[in-house]
């Protein structure tokens, strides 16, 4: 029984992404105006996996905080940015 618990705990710790939420840092090309960046803010907020959206025009970044245990893959992110009229420059991920 102890071994089983140990395996479960170890397995859980080895997959922190499943337990903790992620921060996704998206660098966007063409995002120079807040009036136009509304589309990105609106579309990402509508995503079920997204808990919080922060936009920085100075850094040309959108910072997403994902809900615990939820994922938003790169292809989906690129699609949203593309539909809003922009292009993704880079995507970085880290744990919250």
């Amino acid at each position, binding site marked *: 029984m102890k071994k089983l618990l140990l395996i479960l705990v170890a397995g859980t710790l080895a997959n922190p992404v499943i337990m903790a939420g992620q921060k996704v840092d998206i660098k966007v090309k063409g995002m120079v105006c807040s009036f136009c960046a509304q589309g990105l803010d609106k579309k990402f907020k509508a995503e079920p996996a997204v808990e919080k959206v922060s936009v920085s025009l100075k850094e040309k970044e959108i910072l997403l905080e994902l809900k615990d245990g939820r994922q938003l893959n790169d292809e989906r992110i690129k699609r949203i940015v593309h539909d809003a*009229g922009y292009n993704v420059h880079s995507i970085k991920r880290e744990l919250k």
Partner: protein
Amino acid sequence: MRKLYLLIGLILIALTSATAHPVPFKGAVSVMTWNQPYFNETMAIYSFHRKFAFGGQYMRMDMSDGEMKTIIPQLNFLAKRWNELDSQANVYFVSGFGSYAFDNGITERVKTTAIGGVEADWESRKYYVSAKLTGLWPDIDENTYIQTYRAGVAAYPSEFDEISSWLILDLQHVNRRDREFTATPVIRLFYRNVLTEVGASFNGDWMFNFMVHL
């Protein structure tokens, strides 16, 4: 040769307009109105694709020989967009067909008209230039050509959650009304999805524009 390229570039940029992008983000509804003593335009558009928007516009304009009114369903097309880290540039085409009324003070005639236009803009967080050329080809009367050129500078580089303020010089010419371009300094303020502009031309005519993305 560089100067020639620069000149051609500036002319191309100047060949557009822009208080607003004619094709906002996919799924957006935009409502906008431009107003001067001799000109009113109200438009509502819906972007059903990242490159296309459909909508309708009402326009009223005083000409040298009467008053023109149009109601035109139109299709806007984003032909090309250049997204860079610090800037964005666009070329749009506008087309439509609708009703055209002209009142010369004695009689009012109502017919149809086609509308076509090309717009281009370039903007960064600090600078903005645009140009717009619109043509109206009615069944009656002579053709109308409206040119609008704009250049603007931001008062400060605003962030997403801040009020953004710009000083813009608007140059406008209508072939059936003007002998010279009308120059109007404009103050533009926008916050989130609401944009407003107020200005007064060197002739003393006011300007008020408003736009919202829904």
